[in-house]
C-alpha cells in the first residue's frame, strides 16, 4: 500500500488546465463540511496544519485512476478503500460519506472532490486520492461489496465529469473562477474572520518586518488572506483600499516568504491569477520526481524496467504521452551509478526535456542540429529516434560542457553524432542546410526553480534583457540554418526551461516578424497550456496559441515552453508577396482613376510614373527591413 500510495502522489497527469483552482476550492469546501459535523477542535487542527501542508500536484483523480487501475490488482481495491478510510483522522471520518451527499444536494454547482483532501498525512492523503477514483473505474466490483456504494459512484462519476468540464471552462474565462471562489468563501464564519483579521500592514509594520525579519507563519497567513480577498475583491476589500494595495503587499509577501527578489516575484506573479501564482510558487518549493528515459538504441523500456526492479528500484511509466519515460519513486541503489546506467541503457532526464524532441520529431536519414545541447539528453533522444541514421550535430558553446555531452553521447551508443563547440550564433556560416533544428535556448531557468534555487535571487532585469537578446539572435540563426527545400522537414523547435513571457512568446514573435517565410505550426504535444497571444498589454502573433507551456503546478514537471516553426522556401513567400504587390497595384490603379477626375477638377497634377517609382522604392525598402530579398522592380 505504501508503494502504491507514493506513486499516486507523484504521477504527472495529462493536460488539466488550471486544475489547481479546483482542488484548492474544494479543499476549503470540504473543510467547511467537516466543520458542520465535527467539533471546533478539528478546525483548529486543520488550520494549524494548513500552512505547512504540501500542495498536491494538481491532478484530476478521475484521470489518474484509469491507467493506474489497469495495473493494480483489482480485487484489492474495495478493501483498500475502506481500510484507508479507517486510517483517516478520527474527527474527520464522520464527514466522509454522509456529508458528501449533503454537499451535492445543497450546491450542485460547486465542483466536488471527495473529502480526501482533508487528510494531511502523506500516505493517507494519496491513498484517498485513489479511493474515490477506484469507485469510478471499478463500479461493478464495488457494488458487489458495498450496497450503499453504487449511488455514490454515479454521483462521483457525474462530479468528476463536471469537474473536468469546469476545469476547461475555467481555462476559458477567469470570470467563472471568481464566482466559484465566491461560492466557496460564503461560509459565514470564515468570511467574518477575513474581514476582521485581514488588515494590511502599516508602513511602520513593514519597516519593523524589514529590520527584524517577518514571521513566516504570519506572512503565509497574510498571503492566503489576500488571495482570498483578490478572489472576490468587491465583497472582501476594506473600504479605503485599492486592488493595487493588496497586490503590492501580496508580491512583497511572496518575495519574502519564498525568497525571491521582488523583481522576479512581480514578474512571475503577473503571469498568473493570484491563487494560481501561489500554487506555482508552492510547486517550485517541492522537488519534481526523478525520471529516466530508456535508451531505445540499446534496450527496451520493458526490459530496462525489469532490470531496475530487480535492483530494488520502484518505478512506473511516466504517462501515456511517452513510450520511453520511467518515473523513479524510490531506490535502494543510486540510480545514476547502476551497471545499466553505465552501460547506457538509460539517461537521467526530466520529462520536460522529452517534449522539444517529441515536437521536433526527427526522422531517419535527416540532418539535424541541436544548437545548445549539453548535457546531451535531448541529443541522444534525437539520435535514438533517428535509429542512428543520418547525422546529428550537437553543438554547445561551452567547451567544458561538451565533455559531459560527448561522454553521454558515447555512453548511450549514439554513432551518428558530431559534437562541436561553436557559438550558436555562428551557425549558418559553419554549416547549414539542416532538415530540423532544435534550439533549446540558454535561459534564466525560471521554470526549474525547484532544481536550482539560486535563480530566485541571482537574476536581475539586465539578465533577462541580455538573455532574450541572445535568444532572438539564436532563433534567427536557427531559422537560417534550415534547408527550406527539405522534403521531410524544414522545422525549427524553440524551447526554453523558463516561463517568463519575454523569453518565450516574445522571442518567437520577434522571429515571426523578422522572417516572413516562417510560420507557427502545432507542436504535436497533446497536453500543455496554450501560449499567450496577449498578456500585460503585449500582443503577440495570432498563431501563438499553437505554442505550449508547461507548469510545475499543473503538469508536475519543470516549467517549460515549446514552440515549433515551419520554415518555408523563400520562393513561396516571394510569390505571395508578388501577388500582393500586384493586387496593390490594381488598387492604386483604381485610385489613380479617381485622382484623374480630381485632376480635371482642380489644379493639382499627379505624375503616375513618378508615383509608381516612389511606391516601388518604398516597398523594396520595407521588404529589406523585413529581411526578404526584394523582388526585381517590375516596369510596365
Amino acid at each position, binding site marked *: 500500500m505504501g508503494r502504491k500510495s507514493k506513486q499516486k502522489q507523484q504521477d504527472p497527469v495529462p493536460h488539466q488546465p488550471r486544475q489547481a483552482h479546483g482542488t484548492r476550492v474544494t479543499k476549503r469546501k470540504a473543510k467547511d463540511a467537516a466543520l458542520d459535523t465535527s467539533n471546533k477542535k478539528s478546525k483548529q487542527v486543520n488550520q494549524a496544519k494548513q500552512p505547512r501542508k504540501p500542495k498536491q500536484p494538481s491532478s484530476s483523480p478521475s484521470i489518474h485512476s484509469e491507467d493506474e487501475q489497469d495495473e493494480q490488482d483489482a480485487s484489492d481495491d474495495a478493501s483498500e478503500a475502506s481500510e484507508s478510510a479507517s486510517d483517516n483522522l478520527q474527527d474527520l471520518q464522520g464527514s466522509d460519506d454522509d456529508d458528501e451527499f449533503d454537499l451535492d444536494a445543497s450546491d450542485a454547482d460547486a465542483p466536488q472532490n471527495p473529502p480526501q483532501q482533508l487528510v494531511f498525512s502523506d500516505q493517507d492523503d494519496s491513498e484517498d486520492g485513489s479511493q474515490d477514483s477506484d469507485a469510478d473505474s471499478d463500479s461493478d466490483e464495488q457494488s458487489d461489496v458495498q450496497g450503499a456504494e453504487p449511488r455514490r459512484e454515479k454521483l462521483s462519476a457525474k462530479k468528476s465529469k463536471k469537474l473536468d468540464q469546469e476545469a476547461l471552462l475555467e481555462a476559458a474565462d477567469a470570470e467563472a473562477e471568481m464566482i466559484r471562489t465566491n461560492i466557496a468563501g460564503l461560509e459565514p464564519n470564515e468570511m467574518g474572520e477575513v474581514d476582521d483579521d485581514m488588515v494590511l500592514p502599516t508602513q511602520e509594520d513593514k519597516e519593523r518586518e524589514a529590520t527584524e525579519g517577518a514571521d513566516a507563519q504570519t506572512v503565509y497567513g497574510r498571503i492566503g488572506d489576500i488571495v482570498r480577498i483578490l478572489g472576490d475583491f468587491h465583497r472582501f476589500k476594506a473600504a479605503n483600499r485599492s486592488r493595487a494595495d493588496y497586490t503590492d503587499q501580496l508580491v512583497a509577501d511572496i518575495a519574502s516568504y519564498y525568497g525571491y527578489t521582488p523583481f522576479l516575484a512581480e514578474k512571475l506573479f503577473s503571469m498568473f491569477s493570484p491563487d494560481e501564482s501561489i500554487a506555482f510558487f508552492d510547486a517550485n518549493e517541492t522537488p519534481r520526481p526523478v525520471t529516466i528515459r530508456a535508451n531505445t538504441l540499446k534496450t527496451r523500456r520493458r526490459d530496462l524496467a525489469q532490470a531496475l526492479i530487480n535492483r530494488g528500484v520502484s518505478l512506473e511509466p511516466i504517462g501515456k504521452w511517452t513510450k520511453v519515460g520511467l518515473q523513479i519513486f524510490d531506490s535502494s541503489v543510486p540510480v545514476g551509478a547502476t551497471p545499466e546506467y553505465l552501460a547506457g541503457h538509460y539517461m537521467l532526464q526530466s520529462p520536460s526535456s522529452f517534449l522539444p524532441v517529441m515536437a521536433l520529431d526527427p526522422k531517419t536519414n535527416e540532418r539535424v542540429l541541436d544548437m545548445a545541447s549539453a548535457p546531451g539528453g535531448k541529443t541522444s533522444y534525437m539520435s535514438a529516434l533517428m535509429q542512428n541514421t543520418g547525422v546529428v550535430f550537437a553543438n554547445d558553446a561551452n567547451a567544458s560542457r561538451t565533455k559531459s*555531452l560527448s561522454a553521454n553521447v558515447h555512453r548511450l551508443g549514439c554513432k551518428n553524432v558530431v559534437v562541436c563547440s561553436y557559438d550558436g550564433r555562428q551557425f549558418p556560416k*559553419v554549416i547549414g542546410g539542416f532538415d530540423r533544428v532544435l534550439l533549446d535556448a540558454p535561459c534564466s531557468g525560471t521554470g526549474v526553480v525547484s532544481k536550482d534555487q539560486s535563480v530566485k535571487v541571482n537574476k536581475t532585469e539586465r539578465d533577462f534583457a541580455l538573455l532574450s537578446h541572445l535568444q532572438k539572435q539564436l532563433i534567427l540563426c536557427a531559422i537560417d540554418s534550415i534547408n527550406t527545400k527539405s522534403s521531410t522537414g524544414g522545422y525549427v523547435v524553440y524551447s526554453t526551461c523558463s516561463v517568463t513571457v519575454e523569453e518565450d512568446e516574445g522571442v518567437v514573435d520577434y522571429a515571426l516578424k523578422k522572417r516572413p517565410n516562417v510560420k507557427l505550426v502545432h507542436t504535436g504535444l497533446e497536453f500543455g497550456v496554450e501560449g499567450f497571444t496577449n498578456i500585460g498589454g503585449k500582443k503577440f502573433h495570432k498563431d501563438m496559441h499553437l505554442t505550449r507551456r508547461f507548469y510545475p503546478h499543473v503538469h508536475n514537471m519543470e516549467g517549460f515552453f515549446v514552440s515549433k516553426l515551419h520554415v518555408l522556401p523563400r520562393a513561396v513567400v516571394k510569390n505571395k508577396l508578388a501577388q500582393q504587390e500586384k493586387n496593390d497595384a490594381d488598387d492604386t490603379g483604381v485610385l489613380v482613376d479617381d485622382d484623374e477626375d480630381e485632376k480635371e477638377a482642380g489644379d493639382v497634377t499627379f505624375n503616375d510614373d513618378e508615383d509608381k517609382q516612389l511606391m516601388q522604392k518604398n516597398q523594396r525598402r520595407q521588404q529589406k527591413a523585413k529581411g526578404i530579398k526584394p523582388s526585381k522592380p517590375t516596369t510596365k
Partner: protein
Amino acid sequence: MNYLIKIPGQEPRSPPLLRLQKDKVFLLNTPINNLATSIARPNLISIGQCLGKFTKSGKFKLGIGSLDVLARWARFKVWVKPNGELPFLYGNHVVKAHLGRITEDTPEHQGVVVLSMADVPLGFGVSARSTVDTRKLDPTGLVVFHQADVGEYLRDEDSLF
C-alpha cells in the same frame, strides 16, 4: 589484441572509415565525415565512435568507446556475477570469487571482454590465467586484469573524449 576482433564486413552504401582527430581515433561513416569537414578541427570535439587514442609515446590504446565493436566480435569472454559488477565498474580487477563464466579455452594474457550475467558488456581486459588455471585459483586470486570499463564514462568524463 590483433585477433580479438575481426574486420567488420563493409556495408556498400556507407563504408566506415577511421579518422584521426587530434590524438583520438574515431570510427564513423563516410557521409558523416563528409558533412563534418565543415567543422574546424579545434571546434570538433568528437564524431561517431571513439575507438581509442594514441599515447604521447605513440602507442595506440583502445578506449572504452571501442567496447561496442569488441563485444560484437570478441572470441574470448568473461561473465561476472552480479555482486562482481560494481567492483569491476569502479575500476578493479576481476577476482575468482566474482567469476561467473569464462570461455572454455581462454589462454593466459589474452584480451577478453567482460560481460554481466545478463550479457551486457561492461568492459574489457586481459586474462591473468588460462581457463584451466583459474579452476585451482583461490577466491581472491585475479582472473582478469582491468583495462577499461563503462564506469569510465562517469569517472574520466573530462579526459575521455
